[in-house]
């Protein structure tokens, strides 16, 4: 998807939210993941960097952190990039490991 002039976020903004995924404050983490989920298809070159951190966050104890990471990862899969070859097996193992039904449903939302 091409970036329009009136788009709200640019690559600097996207990289900023990737960085904030590592912060300690839970709200920062989950809002950043949501931004990545909303805009993933705009920045295909930055998705690898984002998904590495998101996969790390899926191991967090907080349900909201895992939920938001799952949302972002499923949106990245929906972008249908080359990354899917590596990402889909990782997410399949996450689905098996995940105990919360609500989070499993989000993963299954992605084909």
């Amino acid at each position, binding site marked *: *998807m091409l970036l329009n002039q*009136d*788009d*709200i*976020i*640019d690559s*600097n*903004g996207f990289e*900023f*939210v990737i960085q*904030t995924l590592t*912060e*300690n*404050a839970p*709200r*920062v983490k989950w*809002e*950043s993941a*949501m*931004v990545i*989920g*909303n*805009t*993933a*298809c*705009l920045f295909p070159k930055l998705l690898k960097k984002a998904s590495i951190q998101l996969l790390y966050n899926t191991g967090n104890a907080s349900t909201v952190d895992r939920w938001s990471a799952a949302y972002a990862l499923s*949106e990245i899969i*929906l*972008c249908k990039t080359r990354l899917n070859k590596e990402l889909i097996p990782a997410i399949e193992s996450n689905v098996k490991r995940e105990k919360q039904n609500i989070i499993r449903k989000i993963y299954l939302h992605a084909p």
Partner: protein
Amino acid sequence: MTFLDVDYYIITPFIRMNFIILKPEPYLLFESKDAIFGSEKTREIEINEGKKYQLGAVNLIMTNPKQKKDTLASILNNNEIVRKEKTLQFSLFLIAGKLPLHDLIETAKTSNHVNKPTLIESLEYATKSRRYNR
């Protein structure tokens, strides 16, 4: 028809038209400093018009060209405005292009654990509204 009647018919619509054109934006209703920092009178407005007051306060600061460069930070640190209203208004400003993304990011970098999520959440609201991935 007397001279006064003519005057009335000619001038009144003109005044009315001007009134419509120059009708102040809602935020101008809260132009005084009291609206931001609180007084008995504005408390009444707050109780009666709750949300409108809050949005008015943010709008007033953001659209005032005389404000300092740290406007964004001053709104964030203003405890008179609730977090949700800040988030909503910042996202609207982002969509309208009134608030540059660069300013938001630079403020977020130096913000504390209370303000930083507010800024990122407003970015989330704004990006969600576009539905890029759909």
